[in-house]
């Protein structure tokens, strides 16, 4: 094969590297403009909605409400009866994720829940999410235990890995953030689907929280640990589906996240290694 290659007369290589650098710079510029445009559009929407609210306030008729209806607003009608009921009972506090204590069990391999987040999103400046911030927030949301093996995906996806040992041995959790094209506000209630994948140890349980604005948060609870390319050693399943759902539904997840969280995450996990398989 090498002898055959030697007999080939390849054309000159040319400025492949320079062309790649120029194309890369162009793509980077486009991405930055896209992010800046989306940010500006978001600010404009916030300003407009604030302005509308300010103007419409005095015109609102004041009606006395019965005392027993002073709870939080019900969730949007995206979930089933369970979700709505849960939403009506949910306390509203930033950072908390009210959830029914025990979602109904089902024999179906996948179930859908509507989990009220309790808050739209954290106030304050927001920045593009990073894997470091994801790992940082994940450590805050995981149940008590020893965390280790924090790692990130080899490409630029928002995809991270963490081990958790709750005393019975380590188990692996991976999670991914993404955003599908969708119009509209984020809302207060993500739809959460829980799937069991018995023949895939890396995704023994897959929980996906989908928000109305297209944000999707996926938590993969593995029954094995990260592999070496050949095999994956066995691990503990360290999160129940409910615990994973609680993590996925946290309102702080998003393709943009709180600026402080980003800063702390990058300081703590900015140099996290890359996981392979």
């Amino acid at each position, binding site marked *: *094969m090498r002898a055959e290659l030697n007999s080939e007369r390849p054309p000159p*290589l040319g400025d492949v590297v320079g062309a790649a650098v120029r194309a890369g710079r162009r793509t980077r510029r486009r991405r930055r403009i896209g992010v800046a445009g989306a940010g500006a559009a978001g600010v404009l929407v916030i300003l407009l909605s604030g302005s509308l609210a300010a103007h419409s306030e005095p015109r609102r008729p004041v009606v006395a409400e019965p005392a027993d209806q002073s709870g939080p607003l019900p969730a949007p009608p995206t979930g089933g009866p369970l979700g709505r009921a849960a939403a009506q009972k949910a306390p509203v506090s930033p950072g908390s994720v009210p959830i029914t204590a025990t979602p109904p069990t089902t024999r179906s391999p996948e179930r859908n829940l509507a989990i009220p987040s309790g808050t739209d999103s954290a106030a304050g400046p927001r920045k593009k999410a990073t894997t470091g911030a994801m790992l940082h927030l994940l450590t805050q949301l995981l149940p008590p235990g020893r965390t280790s093996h924090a790692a990130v995906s080899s490409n*630029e996806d928002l995809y991270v890995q963490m081990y958790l040992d709750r005393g019975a041995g380590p188990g692996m959790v991976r999670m991914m953030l993404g955003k599908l094209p969708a119009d509209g506000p984020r809302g207060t209630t993500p739809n959460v689907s829980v799937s069991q994948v018995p023949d895939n140890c890396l995704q023994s349980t897959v929980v996906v929280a989908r928000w109305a604005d297209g944000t999707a948060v996926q938590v993969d609870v593995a029954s094995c640990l990260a592999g070496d390319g050949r095999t994956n050693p066995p691990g503990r399943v360290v999160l129940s589906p409910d615990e994973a759902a609680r993590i996925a539904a946290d309102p702080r997840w998003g393709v943009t996240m709180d600026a402080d969280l980003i800063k702390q995450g990058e300081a703590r996990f900015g140099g996290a290694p890359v996981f392979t*398989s």
Partner: protein
Amino acid sequence: MTDEDQFVEFANAHAERLRTTAFMLCRDWHLAQDLTQNALTKLFLSWRRAAQSDNLMAYAQKILLRVFLDHRRRRSSSESASAMLHEPAYRESPELRLTMLEALACLPERDRAIVILRYFEDYSVERVADVLELPVSVVKSQTRRSLTKLRELLAEEQLALFG
């Protein structure tokens, strides 16, 4: 040295080798050039992360293979791997020798990539599995099948030449 300088240094040192791999995959120097440039662009965009990997060349090869496979998927109407090499031009010109590269072109893209990585780049089975994101068992079985197929193709050629 900035990230960009580091990238340029790496790319200048390895572009030729990447293009050779690309050529073996597609057997078209111009397409190989395009694939190499696309792969280097992607590498440029993910340089910060790539620079942390243990084997930067393997990382670059991985990107190149993905670019190649994506290109093939997009061009669904393009040439397809055929099990037999009985093209009219070949039959009418017996002096045209069936080379190893031509025989390789008869393999499906993924199998071709496995053979090239395994026997041209001298990658281990595990490393091929990592680069192509395949189980090791699949790499082993596909390598065996591909070699059998190559032997059959080249044996036919030898009979035609010397029979």
